């Protein structure tokens, strides 16, 4: 699986949505992405890429797009 596929999958898993919906998503756009769902998303991303996100990055992860910028810091390119 490519990085973008893994990344999208993490959102789909965390919020139980399809890929199309994942790509435009922002925090609190859907009930599933509340603070509880956010914890789930972080866990999915950490597992998929075998990384540990810094607290600052966790609170900055406010959208699908923003997450890609953040992961770049962990040498994950899309």
């Amino acid at each position: 699986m490519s990085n973008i596929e893994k990344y999208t999958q993490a959102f789909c898993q965390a919020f139980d949505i399809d890929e199309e919906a994942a790509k435009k998503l922002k925090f609190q756009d859907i009930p599933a992405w509340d603070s509880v769902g956010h914890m789930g998303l972080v866990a999915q991303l950490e597992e998929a890429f075998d990384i540990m996100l810094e607290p600052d990055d966790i609170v900055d992860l406010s959208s699908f797009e923003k997450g890609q910028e953040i992961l770049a810091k962990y040498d994950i390119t899309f």
Partner: protein
Amino acid sequence: MWNFSQYGAKIAAVSDEGKSYSYAFLAQQGDKLAAAVGKRCLVFCLCRNSIGSLLGYTAFINHGIVPLMLDEQLDKDLLVSFLHLYKPDFLWLPENRVCEFEGEEVYRDCNYALIKRLDTASYPMYNELALLITTSGSTGSPKFVRQSYKNLEANTHSIVEYLHLNGTERPITTLPMNYTYGLSVINTHLAVGATLILTDKTLMQREFWTLFSEQKATSFAGVPYTYEMLDKLMFFRRKLPYLKSMTQAGGKILPILHQKFAEYAQKEGKEFVVMYGQAEATARMGYLPSNISLEKFGCMGIAIPGGKFHLIDEQGQTITTPETVGELVYEGDNVALGYAEKGEDLIKEDERHGLLQTGDMAKFDKDGVYSIVGRKKRFLKIFGNRVNLDETERLIKTQYQDLDCVCAGKDDAMTIFITDDKRIKEIQSFVANKTHLNFTAFHVQYLKQIPKNEAGKVLYAELNKLC
């Protein structure tokens, strides 16, 4: 309830846009709002952590108008059913939602609007009735706790005393106003002339932490899940020089986290106070004093000032031996009047007379410090919200009439057993939508048959093994 005029120009609340509102503002604008209502009656308050919501709540309480507190994001079907059962005279709600409801808009302030409803019944109300609040979860039950003015005052005094609150406090909101624990933070801090930092942002957002630092927050409140999130956010590494105290309630925190936060508090010269309560006791019944928080981690604590705990066995006899489990009973002026399930119940008087059987099973140690060990009633705490298992079953069975289902599980993780393997996803999102709780808390599991005994009673012990 509150004497706002004594604090005058002092700041009562700061919004997350950085706007300040004085006590005098709350008093003056509150008078105007109450005049627009014009009489003692029932008002549905759709709550947010915003100045409009705060203004409505304080104005109503201070003028003998009875608010029924609801989450602004409550499921619309549920809200409509509550409106039908209670037929309130007015709605106080965010102005962008005015068009959703029938009635005439009669007043507007701080981005909130007052709607005079057409379908009203003006049910007679008991003189002492101050407000109505849910028992926290929303499984569609129209059951609200009836709290009196005396309840609010008694609990406010006790909390102010044991938390040593004063006018220098600056708590940041982390819980909704329609949630009894969140409301008690507001009640107590307005009583001492402190400044509330109002926000609906969550601790998973950068904006929350920016506001926390900029506004120099001195305390916050959290349910067990809040502390799990803080742990993940490596909270201990944050520099928060103004933070003085952290409180926890809304369910039992994991002992390991209790220990971690108590250690952090001790090391940093802050306070970490684990507390215990229910909406049926206004908010608070017990607390673990911060000076023994570390020594007694995992414990619930002692009764708040003015209250008393004791345990009873199955025969109703008082237990006097330490380390013996019994049902926890609380006595105090904060024990609420009783419940309401419809408008006709608002006339009911005090049905408990200061005595509450909590439904929680507890024990005390040789020092008289209590621990909660289980529950008599079938409910779970999910992210701090009480969710009744029987009610959840009813909710599902009403929607899916051909389905057999049983709910079990542990706090923050409900397992729903169903007998139709094609509806697993559907049931999960149905329950999440109705309860407005994150879907990941609900695990739906297929069973060919629900285990029952010969009399048809569900064998919960068998099911708990499968959770």
